[in-house]
């Protein structure tokens, strides 16, 4: 593996992992609210959360660019605080996180729904508070589904292209992830090198889905 390939892989895995970690808390929170509670506006939130899954990724990227650009409503504020987002690695993480969010929420929601509410009720009658029930009963029982969802979210993040190229650009050594680097190499006519990166992409995707499936199978057994 060449130094450039190592750099591209490292950047991709680091940003995808960070994006996945950052969406875990909000993702689980929303998934739990969707799975266990009825509240006004629930179906609206449900739809909004699923949007990045079906919207054109470049459209999502454009929205992020408008929001986080130096003159955008959020970007202006961050720029004043000395934090530039667009065309930096932060934008890569942002795009990956937004695009992976629905996958995580969907998987975690299903996992929460499959936890038998009776077990939670039982714990409550034994005197456990809501937080303790969640941490000691709900979360462990849903863990496999959640981990499988995190792996899928991670795999999706590794493959992100459309939103990333708009909001982070395609800067070799800084924002050029696996997908963007493959695109670059094809543009330059270096198909051979592109195919080498493609193999890495396939390997990562395969491993992530394989392990995610294994987690789900064990739960079903």
């Amino acid at each position: 593996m060449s130094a450039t390939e190592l750099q591209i892989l490292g950047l991709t895995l680091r940003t995808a992992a960070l994006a996945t970690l950052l969406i875990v808390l909000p993702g689980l929170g929303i998934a739990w609210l969707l799975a266990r509670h009825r509240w006004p506006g629930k179906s609206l939130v449900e739809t909004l959360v699923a949007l990045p899954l079906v919207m054109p990724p470049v459209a999502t990227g454009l929205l992020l660019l408008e929001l986080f650009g130096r003159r955008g409503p959020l970007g202006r504020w961050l720029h004043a605080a000395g934090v530039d987002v667009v065309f930096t690695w932060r934008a890569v993480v942002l795009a990956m996180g937004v695009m992976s969010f629905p996958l995580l929420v969907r998987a975690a929601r299903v996992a929460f729904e499959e936890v038998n509410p009776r077990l939670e009720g039982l714990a409550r009658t034994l005197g456990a508070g809501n937080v303790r029930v969640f941490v000691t009963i709900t979360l462990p029982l849903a863990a496999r589904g959640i981990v499988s969802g995190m792996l899928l979210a991670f795999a999706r993040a590794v493959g992100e292209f459309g939103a990333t190229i708009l909001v982070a650009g395609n800067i070799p050594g800084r924002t050029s992830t696996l997908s963007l680097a493959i695109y670059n190499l094809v543009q330059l006519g270096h198909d051979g090198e592109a195919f080498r990166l493609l193999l890495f992409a396939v390997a990562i995707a395969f491993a992530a889905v394989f392990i995610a499936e294994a987690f789900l199978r064990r739960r079903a057994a």
Partner: protein
Amino acid sequence: MRRTLAALALLAFGLAAGAAEVRAVEVRAVEVNVYAAASLTDALQEVARGYERTSRDRIVFQFAASSTLARQIEQGAPADLFLSADELKMDVLAAKGLIDRASRVSVLSNTLVIVVPATGGQRLNGPRDLTQRRFASIAIAEPSSVPAGIYARTYLTRLGIWKAIARKVIPTDNVRAALAAVASGNVDAAVVYRTDARTATRVRIAYEVPRAAGPVISYPFALAASSEHPAEARRFLAYLRSNAAREVFVRHGFLLR
């Protein structure tokens, strides 16, 4: 049931729209597919409007970086004409027998400028100011493949400041994307063609590279060897060299070679 109907209606709408598209194509006369450098966008659209007033042929453009277009033509894209922003891309296609060499002409030229955001943009006393810290990011079309990027890199290398600024360069897909990055205020400066700068309202030309100081910029035009409508393509190619077309190019800021 109602949901199923709504879903079916949505699908039917999609199909109907697709069918309408196909019919619209059928009733038209010959379509000439012109693969043209992004920097030619505005001028060419105006030239084509003039051409279509007298011809029954329709000009269909594909605008992108010349490097992208050359690549697509190599892969068999159905181009009739290729209008490149540098001679190199045309040479590559010529070497592979993908263009009609006899039809090749170079009529247009351009110059480079450095642009900054119109509001809140940094002051630039000369190109060497780009090495200063206040210029944290500089957008340039991909400098190893896209013509505008290669020209910009050549110029900055000639000035001896390429190495100093290479780390701040934000490479873009094509020259118009570099311009847009400045217009949005997301980068501090960009090196683009003078003709591009004139198309954007939110950018200010901070420095004009004198024609003699920059690399020779040349736009070669040629017929694609695999053109399915060579006669019609040739007619539009001839029109591109007419006085009417030249007048449009000059008005858009292009130089004649």
